[in-house]
């Protein structure tokens, strides 16, 4: 019996609004415990929710970016249960009328394109954090995160492998970051993913029993967890057993998942419409306005880079992965014709600098016009590639205009054939033995001459011109 994997994802994404979803506490990560909360988000009686307009905008933005239908009528419901990180003992969420439905996102795995359907996106509030004392001193509750706005994105079970699921995750994070609604940092928990996985008999349309997996804190964990679960379920089904519908917690340390709760323990959340909030009514004007605010998304950029600029699919993907890099590329394109060369510079040196800096968010401190000036100086051989890199470093660290920096550091390379030719003739005359070695067939002797002249010119000799002249003179 062979099995096919069926995977669906539930993604919780924190929206990067200025303030929390229902109160005016600042929406920021971290801080000393319980220093960023108010009576409303820490569950004091008599408080009332007031909906954050920016959270609605971001949810609609995400919905548009993910090809969803934006529902003009949606409402908020209470999900009731007891847990210390839930201050009001209910979470305000959206149950039967979510803000977005029926979207999709296309992924690419091994050159195959596949559309993954999105069932819904809804707004809800985040809970606080529990910190379990390591010395058995109980559990501490921090409400700083309580009330942070979330969108929950639920996919259809359209993914058939862990690879597809990871591709989807990478893709959706890219789209969400592009639309500016979240910074999607898995390590900070601003994006979290639960996996629903089941196996079905190959060729059958009947779905198997699915399990839900939680506590997947990185792509790697998610991947390993899915592989583990496929193995586990396969073993059960191959032995003619039944998979239990349950929620499992992934433990990175042991590389295993453990059962948390089964269907029998499932909670009845007693959903009902939240009477403190009025229904959310949106009109076409509002939705269209948000559409105009949405930037060009990765898929569109890739299409444009490959068809208009003739870049390879790989290059297009690398360039469009981060919005800041892609937009930098776009702006440089305006004043620079050789898109492939530009792409190489950016994928090489710009991304190297970004990686070096390793900041929490990408910031390219160079103006596109200035970068183009630098490339032009390389193209017309005013400077060598090494020099160009040096100038780039200077521009990145302290700003400054490339022409001025080249002047100041005296980096202009010597390409003047006349000047170089004299030096070449001189050095060959003064070094007859290496010259003979070269003529005898030891091509490596050329390096000696290159080295000498580079030393004499302090590295400013144009390497290509120098090589050409040396070879010609040595013959």
């Amino acid at each position, binding site marked *: 019996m062979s099995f096919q994997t069926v995977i669906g994802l539930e993604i919780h994404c924190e929206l990067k609004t200025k303030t929390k979803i229902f109160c005016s506490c600042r929406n920021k990560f971290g801080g000393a415990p319980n220093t960023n909360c108010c*009576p409303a988000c*820490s*569950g*004091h*009686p*008599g*408080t*009332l*929710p*007031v*909906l954050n307009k920016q959270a609605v905008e971001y949810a609609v933005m995400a919905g548009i970016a993910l090809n969803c239908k934006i529902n003009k009528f949606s409402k908020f419901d*209470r999900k*009731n249960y*007891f847990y*210390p990180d839930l*201050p*009001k*003992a*209910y979470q305000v969420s959206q149950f039967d009328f979510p803000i977005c439905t029926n979207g999709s996102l296309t992924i690419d795995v091994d050159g195959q394109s596949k559309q993954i359907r999105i069932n819904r996106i809804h707004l809800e509030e985040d809970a606080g954090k529990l910190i379990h004392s390591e010395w058995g001193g109980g559990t501490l*509750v921090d409400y700083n995160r309580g009330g942070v706005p979330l969108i929950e994105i639920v996919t259809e079970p359209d993914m058939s492998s862990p690879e597809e699921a990871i591709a989807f995750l990478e893709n959706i994070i890219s789209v969400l970051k592009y639309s500016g609604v979240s910074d999607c940092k898995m390590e900070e928990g601003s994006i979290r993913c639960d996996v629903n996985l089941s196996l079905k008999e190959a060729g059958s349309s009947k779905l198997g029993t699915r399990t839900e997996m939680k506590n997947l804190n990185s792509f790697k964990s998610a991947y390993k967890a899915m592989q583990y679960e496929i193995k586990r379920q396969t073993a059960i089904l191959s032995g003619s057993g039944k998979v239990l519908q349950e929620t499992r917690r992934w433990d990175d340390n042991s590389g295993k998942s453990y059962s948390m709760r089964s269907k029998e323990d499932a909670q*009845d959340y*007693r*959903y*009902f419409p939240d*009477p*403190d*909030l*009025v229904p959310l009514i949106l009109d076409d004007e509002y939705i269209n306005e948000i559409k105009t605010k949405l930037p060009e998304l990765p898929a569109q950029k890739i299409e444009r880079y490959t068809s208009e600029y003739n870049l390879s699919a790989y290059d297009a993907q690398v360039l469009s992965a981060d919005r800041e890099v892609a937009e930098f590329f776009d702006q440089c394109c305006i004043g620079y014709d050789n898109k492939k060369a530009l792409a190489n510079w950016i994928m090489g040196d710009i991304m190297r600098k970004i990686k070096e800096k390793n900041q929490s968010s990408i910031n390219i401190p160079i103006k596109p016009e200035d970068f183009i000036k630098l490339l032009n100086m390389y193209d017309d051989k005013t400077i060598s590639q090494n020099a160009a890199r040096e100038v780039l470093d200077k521009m990145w660290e302290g700003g400054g205009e490339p022409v001025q920096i080249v002047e100041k550091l005296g980096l202009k390379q010597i390409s003047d054939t006349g000047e170089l030719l004299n030096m070449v003739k001189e050095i060959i005359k003064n070094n007859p033995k290496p010259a003979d070695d070269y003529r005898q067939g030891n091509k490596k002797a050329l390096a000696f001459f290159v080295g000498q002249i580079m030393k004499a010119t302090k590295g400013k000799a144009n390497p290509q011109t120098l090589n050409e002249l040396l070879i010609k003179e040595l013959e």
Partner: protein
Amino acid sequence: MIYKLSLIEVAEKIKKRELSSVEVTKACLERIEKSNLNAFNHIDRKNALASAKNADKMLGSGEYAPLLGVPIAVKDNICTEDMPTTCSSKMMQKYLPPYSATVYKKLKNAGAVIVGKTNMDEFAMGSSNLTSYTGRVLNPVDNSRVPGGSSGGSAAAVGGQLVYAALGTDTGGSIRQPSSFCGVVGFKPTYGVVSRYGIFALGSSFDQAGPITRTVEDNALMLNCISGYDDMDSTSQNIEYPDYLSALKGDVKGLKVGFPKEYYNVDIDEGGRDTALKALDLFKNAGAEIVEVSLPNFEASLSVYYILACAEASSNLGMFDGVKYGFRAQNYQDLLDLYIATRTEGFGDEVKRRILFGNFVLSSDNYQAYFVKALKARTVIKENYKKAFEKCDIIIGPTSPCTAYKFDAKLSFRCSFMSDIYTSSVNVAGLPAISVPFGKDKDGLPYGLHIIAPPLCEQRIYNAAKFVQDGEGKK
């Protein structure tokens, strides 16, 4: 006698400096201390006298505010950051809120001297003040009888002339019924006219705070001070608020007074029925037109009220779990035990009953049959009132099917289960309504006349109520 004055009279005398706020406040505090009514959970002597002193000072420098220097009380489910707010429950003993309710701030801005927090049925659940953790309240008209509830303390404090006005809250009749039992004027505004921010939520889509006073004019003045749009309350009415006191004439000529024919089917003592009919004559003789209207399925509204209000209450009371503030059980083994022990010990029987009932109607098996059906019925009830008001300007009837009963009375069905029959459908429909004293029963206990109007027609009610009050005064 200072304590026999109405609010407007004493405010006038204080303004004219015939009386000082300090002497008026001292007199009130003395009466409160001597009183055996147990109307107060907390008396803030120090701050009250400080406020009074400050009021006198302000008047001295020519400043003025509508309630300046007048001693007033506030029901103990309204958050006051300078006084404990306990809801007369073991669960909230010693709870000091981290913020104050909008209505409380408004009273302070209007210059009121807040003397303390009044006793009530626990978490506003009850109509006798017998469910209070801090003991029964005595009816000032007859100390062997209940004052009604859940704003029993507020109604007794006003009826017993301990303060010039008190704030109550009304979810199914909790301002109007105790007002009728204690012979005072109690008003429930249109839903959304008074901010709910800072008031312990019971039935979120039913609750309204309102004034309890000795005269209709006093009541209108109080409503002027506490009403208004509040952006902290998403259900607050964003409209132009009128001056409720200014056009108060008591002229009912040409007024169409409706009497629902279904009221004849309600079980009420003869005296009560006769009294209501007497009121109709009174209006007719003054030039009003009596119209028979219909409120179909009237008795079903009580079930609708209980289903929806208890559902909301069960969710609203979830936050009282012993984790964050308030009472926590001393002995517990684990988290679940903490919740169970705290809520078992912290809540009284009536509270538990209503939470259980609320959970029942929200549970997934029963949600459609009870909650959803009640929601639909709610819409019908609103429609029924709307249709009735096409034929009349106000609807009158008895406030309660019984008068204040003895503490040890064995309650009839109508006085226990049906006690909210006239008042609760008003909250279901979000309408404004008043109870104004009208006549007495054979034991000398006051009847209350109930006057209902369409949404936002508070002035119409005050006008008709003044007419009734003036008629009573002439006797």
